[in-house]
């Protein structure tokens, strides 16, 4: 099976994070990216609720619930961390001081539009910091399954769900591909070697362009 697991998608996204990068990981799935930093590279993680340079979760029972990330999970501190209030935290976000934000998505459109906060008018809406992150970080990447659970494409021509941001996504890491958004189009960068371009295109709701070589998308067992 050539489909990447969620761990493997997170691993692949982590490979593109430079040493010394300031990174914000969205709540849930994107948090996994922190586990796969390549050896010798150190990213500094930012969380909206006011911590820079936090580390892994503490052992169960060791949690300090005043020391949490934006997903309300307990974290620990690394040497050289800092606390700050929410306005300073979002000054970091909005002011372009984060190198990368990695978010989950319901849909990403070929023009870079992102829908990841609302599945429609039903239920209680909740947006958190996603709309701030997508217009702040120098690079906004998405990690997600290539298709929805019901098989519908999540990579689309135009988002059908309420937007989080307009033209903000530049790279998408999925279970089947690495895709860049360039000039309002999806450009395929990587795919699993055993997956044909045609099969990948069939699972994608907008045209995939080829521009330069397509590398093999291969992740270790995780």
């Amino acid at each position, binding site marked *: 099976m050539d489909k990447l697991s969620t761990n493997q998608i997170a691993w692949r996204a982590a490979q593109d994070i430079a040493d010394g990068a300031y990174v914000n990981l969205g709540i849930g799935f994107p948090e996994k990216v922190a586990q796969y930093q390549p050896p010798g590279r150190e990213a500094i993680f930012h969380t909206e609720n006011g911590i820079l340079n936090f580390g892994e979760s503490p052992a169960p029972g060791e949690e300090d619930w005043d020391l*949490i990330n934006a997903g309300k999970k307990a974290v620990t501190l690394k040497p050289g961390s800092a606390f700050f209030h929410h306005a300073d935290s*979002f000054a970091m976000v*909005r002011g372009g001081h984060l190198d990368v934000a990695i978010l989950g998505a319901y849909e990403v459109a070929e023009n870079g539009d992102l829908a990841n906060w609302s599945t429609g008018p039903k239920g209680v809406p909740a947006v958190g*910091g996603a709309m701030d992150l997508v*217009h702040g970080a120098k690079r906004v990447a998405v990690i997600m399954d290539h298709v929805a659970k019901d098989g519908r494409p999540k990579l689309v021509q135009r988002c059908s769900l309420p937007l*989080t941001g307009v033209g903000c996504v530049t790279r998408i890491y999925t279970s089947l591909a690495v895709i860049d958004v360039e000039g309002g189009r999806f450009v395929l960068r990587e795919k699993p070697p055993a997956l044909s371009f045609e099969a990948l295109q069939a699972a994608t709701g907008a045209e995939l362009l080829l521009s330069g070589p397509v590398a093999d998308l291969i992740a270790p067992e995780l």
Partner: protein
Amino acid sequence: MDKRVADLAAAVAGIEDGMTVMIGGFGGAGSPIELIHALIDRFRATGSPRNLTVVNNNAGNGHVGLAALIEAGMVRKLICSFPRSADPVVFTELYLAGKIELELVPQGTLAERIRAGGAGIPAFYTPTSYGTDLAKGKPVEEFEGRPYVRERWLKADAALIKAETADPQGNLTYRAAARNFNPLMCMAAKETIVQASRILPPGGIDPETVVTPGLFVRKIVEVPHPRQEEDLNRAGAVYPLEA
């Protein structure tokens, strides 16, 4: 200059029907449980305050703190960024029944609007929410070729704040990520009411490490062993707490 008040009841005595109240905290971190519960105590005894507009990042969790305030029927409207959490059943049921109003604000915009309220900035432009449903009806303007949404300041009649240390002048420090919205809300409220785990003598806080200068604070009450919302919820606690 001594901003200490006798007890929690005295601290929240000035909050009246229809007021806008900012409440610090992000999830359970920095949530002033004791001040909130003192306010509910007053409501249960007197029927007031009610019809409150509450500003908080979340919508409460479980049956303590903000969730208990909502459950008591004291809140008319909530201004927040993320009214979902592990157990926001109180808010969710009222919201879906149309019994509580919600103004949803992106988290960074919420923080900046509160800071603007405190800093005398009536409006500012942000890229956040441009082109989304949350920008509907708001003025848009281009600066250097990029579109921005104009947002308004947010102020409150009162703020309920959880601090770690205070001095009698009202200078404050916080604990770890319990800082979050607390320093901003101190700035944006007419009456900033603080519960601090420790009140130190004047000069007890190094002026270099003060996070909230005392000028933003009106009342202080010492709550030596404050409860943490997350701990309470994990223990299944329900307002009113046992002493």
